């Protein structure tokens, strides 16, 4: 073993804390401490809170999203320190405006509670990026930009991530994007594109 590795401190045995019984948090929106704290701190940005299947969702204004997430992370009682997921939903079939929902899933490692924060954003509007407060948001926001075309302010490296860099067909997870894309493909050995198969099952409107 080299000297560099010999200098590492002694390695203690692997241990595990004993967990108490799981804390799932209150189910009433008005009693939820995170809802209470956000509503008190951001009275103008807080819109509403919904509970479905014991999962709390807080809806806030788009422009204050980063402040709310940072507040929830740094609040000594809330401590939602793990940014689990950032994604978006195209709500065009469910409502008129705003078109998209930015969905942020948070988890508090000390309190063992999940929380979902949503913000509505319309086509052409921008969202404050969460990268300055959570490094994990970097690729997730790139994916949202890639799939929905939502632009994040102050993102250090906003470019496509899953699709090709020169993809010029738009953003696939928008509801107006066809399942098989806009283009026709001619496979090698064929002279014309393969016929499109119409699915029988239609979504009831």
């Amino acid at each position, binding site marked *: *073993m080299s000297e*560099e*590795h010999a200098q*590492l401190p002694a*390695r*203690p045995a*692997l*241990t*595990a*804390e004993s*967990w108490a*019984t*799981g804390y*799932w948090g209150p189910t009433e929106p008005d009693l939820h401490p995170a809802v209470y704290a956000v509503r008190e701190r951001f009275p103008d940005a807080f819109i509403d809170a919904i509970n*479905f*299947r014991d*999962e709390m*969702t807080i809806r806030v204004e788009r422009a204050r999203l980063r402040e709310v997430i940072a507040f929830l992370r740094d609040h000594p009682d809330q401590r939602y*320190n*793990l*940014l*689990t*997921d950032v*994604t978006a*939903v*195209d709500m065009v*079939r*469910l409502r008129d405006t705003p078109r998209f929902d930015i*969905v942020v*899933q948070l988890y508090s*490692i000390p309190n*063992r509670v999940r929380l*979902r924060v949503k913000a509505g954003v319309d086509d052409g509007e921008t969202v404050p990026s969460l990268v300055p407060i*959570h*490094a*994990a948001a*970097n*690729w*997730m926001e790139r994916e949202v930009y890639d*799939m929905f075309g939502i632009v994040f302010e102050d993102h250090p490296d906003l470019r496509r*991530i*899953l*699709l*090709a860099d020169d993809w010029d067909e738009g953003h*696939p*997870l928008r509801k107006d*994007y066809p*399942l098989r894309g*806009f*283009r*026709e*493909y*001619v*496979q*090698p050995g064929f002279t014309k*594109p393969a016929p499109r198969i119409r*699915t029988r*099952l239609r*979504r*009831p409107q």
Partner: protein
Amino acid sequence: MVIDFSQPTPVEISEERQLTASRREMVLNMGPQHPSTHGVLRVLLTLDGEVITSCDPNIGYLHRGVEKLGESHRYSQFVPWTDRTDYVAAPSNNLGYVLAVEKLCGIEAPERAQYWRIIMGELARIASHLVWLGTHALDIGALSISLYCFRERELILDIFEKFCGARLTTNMMEIGGFSRPIPPELPEMVRTFCQVFPGGQQDYEDILSKNPIWLSRTRGIGVIEPEVAISYGLTGACLRGSGINYDVRKAQPYLLYDRLDFEVPLGSHGDVFDRYLVRMEEMRQAIKIIEQCIDQVPTDGDLMLRGSTYTIPPHDTVLTTAEDMQRHFIWVIKGFSPPKGEVYQAIEHSKGELGYYIVSDGSPMPYRMRLRTPDFVNLQSLPYMAQGAMLADVVAMIGTIDIVLGSVDR
């Protein structure tokens, strides 16, 4: 617009690429066909000598649009697609998805099915860790370990094959339980595996744990501090290797994990070697969980929830009662319509927290299907680890994150 694949694509050399040729630094393109990138990962490394000055992982070569496909499939049709995301631990993906749909519908599988789901999930965890250990050790230079790992993995795949007929893409679970009966010899196969596996694991540890080459290639390499690990959103062994105790099975128990006795191993240095130790201990704990489950599981009882509109009726009542035959027909032809709402269900996958976020508009198909895959998020920490490291350690860092590109690219 028509694309003709028979014509060659023009190749352009970017200005940036031309500029780097004149600089002192060198751009090295690693992948996407490099054997130690575990699939089609492409990493653009900027090197100053042998020291890495910047690292840019480039993903998406295996992107199949699984989330878009989820919006055009009925709920039960999407289960096979979850196999294809992380194909080395397919039952765990099935489990996360069916749990999310069951949460959305407000139903719960029978107790016997829940025990068998735990057993299959833990077997998948061991199988995934074995593939990880074999390929990770192969990258660093221990060749024989991969043969040992695949020797024990065969036993797990035999159990999967006995149960559902498939070895890799299992399509094992159904919404509301299992649609297949448990073969009578399956408990004995699982018991035999639990007896055989610790000896095999001893072989791996005999080769690796005190091997000076292995220690010098892994200790102090790819260190992630606890605060950085949380900031990067790491989960699974990457987070626990840094000493943060977060395991979904303990923190927010799903299925029957709150009845079982097991421990969550934690590392202390956050380096490649600690994550190796954590995963080895996780395999031991998984065996402990499986042994408890196989002792506690009822030998007979329903494997599928009966009498719910959200589940497929069991085969015996379909053939004997008219109502269930009609319900079976409707379920297959039209699917079922869960209530409007949105759920996020997380499980402890072998690689970290696997989450399914489903938005339902009350129709038989999900309005939005989001897969929060652990290795997509964990791979973000590669540039942090590689910054200032040596070129030869990058393969150890890629291996320690435990990525499967089908799961990263979805």
